[in-house]
């Protein structure tokens, strides 16, 4: 059987030379597939350098607590345990991965220092000759805690008097250019609500979602004779990982070499610099190769999930289906640390008005710190849950108005040249055509005026009732 492709509809590409279509619509073999089907693809853990040491982590058993003391005596006595790393061993212990694009402050310790802010936070790293000894050592570390009140809900975290989760921020929210949230102010929503035939407001909420890659997060670091460290990693972002690791180690970038790109499932979950810094420090201190790989339990329990979100959407809607105003309040649960959530929240803010032209938009998008597992990147993070909310909202509006949900979307769809709420001019829009084509393919009948709408033609829509 040859892989079948559906013939592509070239209507929209009529001006393009036919010979340019030598990839789309044809079969192109994946370059890595032969390795996969023969078992010869090398994933990082398929390496077995001699004298390999293993790292396992002792993790916080509290959501929020001060660390009064750490006792390593019993752990160090386990046969095979070579060394135990604490925050004092990490040259620049506090970091934030997006500092590479200017996001500050540094707000997360590689190994906990003074307190823990989520259940499962790494405290000390046990380096041992066998995986079993490393596990045994990690289990025998004793930490003395003073429990602190934990906050596990985004709106409770923003309430007055809530316990402060992350002192590096001073508040339980990420600050955007002096503002307590990422904001959009476009037109005047309150006037739109006053003039609307209907006002609809609903709340949407999602739980954290774990990527659950089949290959867990991990790396093997091999010290080289020239003093460099070679990092074999399943990171999704080799150079992002290399640069962040070098900053944490306080070494020039060229002291590290990263070998990667073969990832046994990532989905956004392998961009957090979770294992490389500790493994590098362990390799530097022991001068031996070191492996640090998450167990399945750690992957599920402590690797960062997609953020939980809570979204309130309030829309001003006219009887003919035009949406004239949209007010959005979004809470992204970043968990205890920033990681990629400040960026995800910004994406959500730009995205939530949707692929629709709404003349009045107001949005407050909060990136909130709680004592939950830090969330981070996952497949379209910042927009995926927003899409669930806003398309659910569109369907509910259509139902309330007893209107065809496709027609509601066609009436409101953005056209080329429209100014979007975050002040980008819409270009190359195709929502109208995609809906028309989808309707045709499933036999959903649209009246002539809807079939004649075009993304290129704002005027046609105005004539049809805007």
């Amino acid at each position, binding site marked *: 059987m040859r892989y079948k492709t559906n013939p592509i509809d070239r209507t929209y590409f009529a001006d393009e030379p036919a010979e340019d279509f030598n990839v789309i619509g044809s079969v192109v073999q994946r370059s890595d597939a032969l390795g996969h089907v023969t078992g010869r693809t090398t*994933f990082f853990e398929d390496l077995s350098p001699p004298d390999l040491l293993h790292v396992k982590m002792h993790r916080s058993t509290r959501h929020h607590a001060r660390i009064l003391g750490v006792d390593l005596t019993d752990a160090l006595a386990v046969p095979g345990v070579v060394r135990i790393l604490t925050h004092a061993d990490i040259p620049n212990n506090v970091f934030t991965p997006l500092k590479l694009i200017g996001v500050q402050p540094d707000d997360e310790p590689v190994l906990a220092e003074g307190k823990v802010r989520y259940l499962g936070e790494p405290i000390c790293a046990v380096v041992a000759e066998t995986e079993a000894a490393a596990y045994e050592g990690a289990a025998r570390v004793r930490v003395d805690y003073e429990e602190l009140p934990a906050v596990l809900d985004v709106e409770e975290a923003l309430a007055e008097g809530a316990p402060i989760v992350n002192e590096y921020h001073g508040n339980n929210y990420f600050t955007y250019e002096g503002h307590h949230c990422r904001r959009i102010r476009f037109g005047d929503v309150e006037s739109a609500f006053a003039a609307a035939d209907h006002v609809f407001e609903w709340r949407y909420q999602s739980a954290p979602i774990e990527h659950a890659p089949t290959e867990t997060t991990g790396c093997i670091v091999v010290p080289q004779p020239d003093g460099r460290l070679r990092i074999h990693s399943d990171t999704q972002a080799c150079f992002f990982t290399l640069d962040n690791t070098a900053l944490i180690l306080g070494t020039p970038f060229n002291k590290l070499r990263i070998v990667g790109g073969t990832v046994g499932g990532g989905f956004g979950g392998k961009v957090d610099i979770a294992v490389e810094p500790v493994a590098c420090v362990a390799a530097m201190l022991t001068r031996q190769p070191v492996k640090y790989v998450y167990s399945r339990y750690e992957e599920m329990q402590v690797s960062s999930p997609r953020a939980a979100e809570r979204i309130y959407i309030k829309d001003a809607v006219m009887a003919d289906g035009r949406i004239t105003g949209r007010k959005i309040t979004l809470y992204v649960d970043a968990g205890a640390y920033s990681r990629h959530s400040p960026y995800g929240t910004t994406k959500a803010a730009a995205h939530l008005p949707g692929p629709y032209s709404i003349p009045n938009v107001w949005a407050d998008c909060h990136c909130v710190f709680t004592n939950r597992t830090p969330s981070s990147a996952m497949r379209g993070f910042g927009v995926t849950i927003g899409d669930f909310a806003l398309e659910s909202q569109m369907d509910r509006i259509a139902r309330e108005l007893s209107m065809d949900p496709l027609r509601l979307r066609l009436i409101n769809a953005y056209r080329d040249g429209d100014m979007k709420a975050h002040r980008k001019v819409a270009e190359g829009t195709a929502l109208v055509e995609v809906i028309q084509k989808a309707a045709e393919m499933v036999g959903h009948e649209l009246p002539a005026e809807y079939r004649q709408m075009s993304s290129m033609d704002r005027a046609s829509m105005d004539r049809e009732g805007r």
Partner: protein
Amino acid sequence: MASQVVNLRVNERSREFLAAPGTSLLSSLRDALGLMAAKRGCAQGSCGTCTVLLDGRPVMSCLVAVETVDGASVRTLEGVARDGELDEVQAAFLEGFATQCGFCTAGMIMSAEALLDRNPDPTREDVVEAISGNVCRCTGYGPIVDAILDAAARRRP
């Protein structure tokens, strides 16, 4: 307890190695014999990416204590291609776009081999049942099922 000598016939070669008590078949294949096709996904028998054939039957090799199968015959993905020629299942996976990240592929192919060995003419339901213990988190099950059915067709005389 002392380590013991274990003998296995792996991909039609006799292999002898030392194993500490409780060492899994997966660890033995990877660490003692250097056969890296079978992967550690969960180490608790729930993902299927470590699937190999033990005396012709598919097993999760992370759950098999190797000292309990001394003398057995084992087939891994490394033993499927002959003289560099892909077998029907491998070729069908390759040409049918049944791989994405590739981490589940070794287990999927071994489960497929076991199915086709005992049932050369499976239905779609048979295939789905045969790979029900193999997780593809890229969720590419459609092409995988198609590829296994295609492999069965290629194998028919």
